[in-house]
């Protein structure tokens, strides 16, 4: 996990960044500490046409159908003085109350694409539930694929490209997680104990084998 401000790696459960002392109170001071109501597709910059908005909403609904625990949000804004899109995304996903998202899908399962139309930058933020499944490199890959469309100002196609790539990554990760869970379950059933996997790992270790042989 990386700090949204200094982009340094931070250990889990750190209350504030050990490098720059960043915490949510810092962004709350800037953007406000109250929850903000918005929809999964918010075009504050007014760059999308009506047809494009409808099409994009359809894609976002499809994403929610495929991933019953998750939702995808897109925010188009134009920030005059905000070079820190990363911090804005962090704040919005923590303080945003998405009206068109069911309560069974908390923001922990949210992915937010923030686009600064004026500052010409785009960033992705994800909730806690996606920490192990959506790496920073994967988000960079998604943004890179949409880069030509961003350059040309084709916001709909850029958003669709990001959405499509993120969907592929998450589908792959979901299948992998399911496979690993099944393997673990079958292994437990075969060994008949809950800590068999760990014991197996220990026994495969050289030192452990020597001790067990002794």
């Amino acid at each position, binding site marked *: *996990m990386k*700090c*949204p*401000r200094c*982009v340094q790696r*931070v250990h*889990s*459960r*750190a*209350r504030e*960044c050990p490098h720059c002392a960043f*915490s*949510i*109170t810092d962004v709350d*001071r*800037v953007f406000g500490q109250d929850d903000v109501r918005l929809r999964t597709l918010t075009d504050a910059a007014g760059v999308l046409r009506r047809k494009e908005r409808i099409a994009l909403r359809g894609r976002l609904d*499809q994403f929610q*159908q*495929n*991933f*019953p*625990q*998750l939702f995808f949000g897109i925010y188009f804004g134009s920030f005059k003085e*905000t*070079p*820190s*899109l*990363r*911090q804005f*995304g*962090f704040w919005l*996903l923590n303080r945003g109350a998405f009206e068109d998202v069911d309560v069974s899908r*908390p*923001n*922990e399962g*949210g992915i*937010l694409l923030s686009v600064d139309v004026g500052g*010409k*930058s*785009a*960033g992705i*933020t*994800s*909730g*806690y*539930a*996606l*920490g*192990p499944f*959506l790496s920073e*490199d994967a988000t*960079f890959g998604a943004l*890179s694929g949409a*880069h030509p469309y961003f*350059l040309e100002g084709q916001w709909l196609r850029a958003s669709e490209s990001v959405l499509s790539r993120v969907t592929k990554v*998450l*589908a792959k*990760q*979901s*299948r992998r997680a399911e496979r690993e869970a099944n393997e673990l379950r079958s292994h437990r059933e075969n060994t008949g104990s809950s800590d068999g996997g760990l014991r197996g790992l220990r026994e495969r270790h050289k030192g452990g084998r020597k001790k067990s042989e002794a």
Partner: protein
Amino acid sequence: MRLGFCLCLFALVVQSPLGAQSAGPSDGAKTDSGQAEVSREKLSSRLPELPVWSPSDYEGVKKGEIVAGENFFGQVTVDPEATIEPPVVDLPEDVEPLPEQLDENELVLSSEQMAAYFRSAPEEPPGEVALLKDPQDLLSQQEFRDCASFLSYHSNESEIDIVLYLFDERQELPEEYNIDKVHQVYGELFKDSGPVVSVYFHLGAPNRAQLMMSPEIRAVIPQDEQERALRASIVEAFEKTDEALQLDSFLGELSTRLYWIERELEIAGLQEKIAGAQPVENFDVPESSREAGSFWIAARAGLVLLVGLGGLIVGVFAWRWSLRQRKYYFPEVDDERVFGAPHAAGAGAVVTFVDPHLPPSRQRHQEAELERWSDL
């Protein structure tokens, strides 16, 4: 010991040509001048005499009337009566005598010779035809075995057998053994063997090859397609120079072509008819049945294509629909709050899109953003 060795070495040096030169310069000079004179005389005897300058020539050169070397660049005078004798070339004698010019009548095979081609061998089981006919032993034993083995292999793999008749490069066949009449005259040979392609192949002259398919094949396969198969096989044969290799290539290509012809027969639904014994007497296939057959081929092929295409489209739609309906779940992870944030702390990548000439990796934003916040 050393003294003795030095004396011997000195004596050798004195006797050698080098030693002779160094020992007596006067004698050597004499011999040199004598040899030079002899060689000069020899040279002068071979060359024409050099022109001699006269005082008047000298005066002419001084006045500019004569230009030295003028004759070299002027027109060369040619002696009209001069003759050039052709050089005598010693040609090597012919190692192999030229083949004798055969009489045209000798090239035509006799009826007895031809009968040997269509005589069933006693070891052949009834109902089977020997696939390779070479009563003149034009192929070596090894080549014969290879060729027969290939034809046998093809026969096992394919429903259409190839029966090969081998002739020499320039041999002519009697009129009554024209390939068009083979199936008519010697129908009993192929009666129980199913569809057959008879091939006349002249070793060393693949372009003279002839091909005749049995009536049940001709009923389905148009004539131009049969000719295409023959032409392609001949072209393939000409890729090689050796006679036996030409035959191999010819048969390989023909076998491939027959595979596709067999497929067409299957599509036409005539496989059962072909398997059943058809009378060879039905030699002339009526034009109307040929047209009907081709219509049914086209109709069936179109139907198969339509069904296949429809299946493909339905499959693609079903696959896309299943993808859209598929649900993906994730296991719940431990709740590890960071920075006091209640829902999210996964700071992903940030990319700017300012410069179209730079790749996204060069526009990836990974710097600390302390300045703005330090003002607050």
